[in-house]
């Protein structure tokens, strides 16, 4: 059943699957760095710190037995990026996959873009389930047959074989970014895409790798004057001329590519004035936006800063229409979080299929869902303890101060090593993918 009516409180979330190693000693290369469903939701891609991409495919569920929830199983694994070395700077360029974005499907093959700090690659994932047999000049094992010995000719035929999924790099888009790439976004024109680093945004054609257009450049002439960087960028889901980018100062700029070739002048600037009662040394740091996502219908956009999620109406620049506190109990702990660097963590956020619920991650392997319509929110946990098949997740509660009730967890007991930075929601159904440090949890709504 599609998740069209279900708000976060009508839906009961159940554990479905967990992927990844069980042991607690995490290999750094296995740390998940991005999660993305494709446009149909049939495929789920993850990227990790070791430069690998793992794609899971949803098994076609048995329609006559809806109780059997479809499962995601490994479909393809490949090494997307390798570490590189910048000899001038004596710096290693990490192979960590920063983002994966699926292209809309045009034929039998699937295409995705994956990027590390410096290079974007277009991968083709195709299936092969038949092979040719009966060549005239080649044996089955590949040895050549001497033409003189051939007495009769035959037509090679297709024979079924075990399904083989091949991933091949089709394009490599390199050398266009001097700073670390943080975002890629595919345009609704199905021809172009953008890539954003700390100071610049480039526009590419999907077919052309040796050229890109620079459309935003916020690098000051004198680097001493640098006070703001680009943190995320995304194309509008249906207006191919519109994109937004967010900054480390908490502002979002909407740009129209029809206005000029270089979109340094924004068309709209979304910024909320700071609440003076909340001012602290860390105000600027926590206002830095870590993710920006358009709603599927293109009327709203959502931004994630350190403590909150904000929904903006594209027609109103002065303030967001909705603000949701993710973990307000951390506001009094900002100094500690600054000291242990947690304050620089970049959380992502996502919409559900019909834009009624938004989701984001937090610490202690908690993640939060906010139902916009019903004005209710829930905190859930991705943990091994709640990993029995079809086990319903119990809402969690953090006790900010005062007397801790039963089943509540106090702020001081939260594990800041266990952070959920990456989450994804199936485009149509109530299926979510939540990445802990090195495990991928898949939850689904309860089927009665």
């Amino acid at each position, binding site marked *: 059943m599609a998740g069209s009516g279900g708000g976060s409180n009508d839906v009961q979330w159940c554990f479905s699957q967990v992927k990844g190693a069980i042991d607690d000693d995490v290999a750094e290369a296995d740390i998940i760095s991005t999660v993305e469903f494709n446009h149909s939701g049939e495929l789920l891609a993850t990227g990790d710190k070791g430069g690998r991409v793992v794609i899971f495919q949803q098994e076609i569920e048995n329609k006559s037995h809806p109780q059997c929830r479809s499962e995601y199983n490994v479909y393809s694994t490949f090494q997307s990026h390798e570490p590189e070395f910048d000899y001038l700077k004596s710096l290693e360029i990490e192979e960590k996959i920063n983002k994966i974005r699926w292209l809309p499907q045009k034929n039998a093959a699937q295409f995705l873009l994956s990027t590390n700090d410096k290079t974007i690659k277009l991968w083709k994932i195709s299936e092969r389930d038949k092979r040719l047999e009966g060549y005239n000049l080649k044996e089955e094992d590949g040895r050549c047959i001497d033409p003189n010995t051939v007495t009769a000719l035959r037509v090679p035929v297709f024979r079924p074989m075990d399904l083989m999924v091949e991933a091949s790099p089709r394009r490599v888009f390199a050398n266009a970014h001097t700073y670390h790439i943080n975002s890629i976004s595919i345009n609704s024109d199905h021809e172009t895409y953008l890539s954003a680093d700390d100071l610049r945004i480039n526009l590419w054609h999907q077919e052309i790798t040796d050229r890109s257009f620079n459309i935003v450049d916020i690098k000051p002439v004198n680097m001493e004057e640098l006070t703001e960087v680009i943190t995320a960028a995304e194309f509008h889901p249906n207006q191919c001329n519109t994109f937004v980018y967010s900054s480390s100062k908490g502002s979002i700029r909407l740009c129209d590519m029809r206005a000029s070739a270089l979109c340094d002048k924004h068309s709209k600037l979304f910024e909320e004035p700071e609440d003076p009662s909340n001012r602290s040394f860390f105000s600027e740091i926590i206002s830095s936006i870590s993710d920006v996502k358009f709603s599927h219908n293109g009327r709203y956009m959502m931004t994630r800063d350190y403590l909150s999620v904000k929904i903006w109406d594209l027609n109103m620049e002065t303030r967001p229409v909705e603000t949701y506190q993710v973990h307000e109990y951390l506001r009094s702990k900002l100094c*500690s979080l600054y000291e242990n660097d947690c304050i620089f963590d970049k959380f992502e956020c996502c919409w559900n299929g019909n834009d009624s619920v938004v989701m984001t991650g937090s610490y202690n392997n908690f993640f939060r869902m906010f139902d916009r319509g019903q004005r209710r929110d829930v905190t859930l946990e991705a943990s091994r303890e709640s990993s029995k098949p079809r086990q319903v997740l119990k809402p969690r509660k953090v006790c900010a101060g005062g007397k801790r009730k039963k089943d509540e967890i106090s702020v001081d007991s939260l594990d800041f090593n266990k952070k959920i930075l990456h989450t994804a929601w199936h485009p149509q159904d109530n299926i979510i993918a939540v990445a802990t440090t090195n495990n991928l949890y898949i939850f689904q709504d309860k089927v009665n």
Partner: protein
Amino acid sequence: MGQRDIVSYETSVRRKSRIRTASTMCRLDVESDVKGPEQHGNALPSSRYMVGRGVKRKLSECEDQMLDLPYPQQRQLVLDLCLDKLQSCQRRAEPSLHRSVLLANTLRQIQREMRQEGGPHHPESPPPAPATPCHSPELPPVPSDRPSTPVAALSSSLLCEDDDAQSTCTELPKGPWSEDVGKLPDLLFGSFEITNSTSYLTDLQLDDIFEDIDTSMYDPSDFSVLACPPPRGSSGASLGNDYNLKAFSTCTTSSSTLQMCLNDLDHIMEILVRS
């Protein structure tokens, strides 16, 4: 959730020659400012993810104490943290421009506030430049005029690369922080560009010599010889670097002349080795 041993989170900070350690998260123990060089099992981790070492990282209850401190002391604490983090930025394996900008902004804001209050509270003598292998004590203090600052950064990083190709070494200026912090962002931010050597050097206003370099054609494996020139002593090595870079400038992007360029470089290397 598996409850492991809760070890209170500790951090250690180097101040000149003393090791000031903290038993609590925010070093709010004002009466015992300097502890001896204690061994702390869980020093502040590097920028890499702290991965499953079996220690649950959590907050301590000291945050409330922080808020009890008078404002100037709170501010000083944050300022100290800021400076430490900016310093450690240089040593990180994955430098982040975003993080450095946020830190620099916080620092500027605090400094501005301090200045507005009348100035008696300039930051104390700053921590020295980090003791990385490439630290070069002979390096003159960074001059105060702006245009030469990028050059100082370039020359210091070139010298550094001779000594140890593996470490990142944009040198921090010596001298009181209050004068040089303004230059700090430039030296920090100038080091964040990746790979495209043309734009890096152009930004540092050395267009004349290097404008026609395009390293996009070069296979990094060809650089293995050049990245680590034979140790010659500082003057010889820096001279060698100049030769290497000037040789680059004669190469064009045409693949037919690439081989010629590499032959030129081999030739230069032979000269250096022989002389």
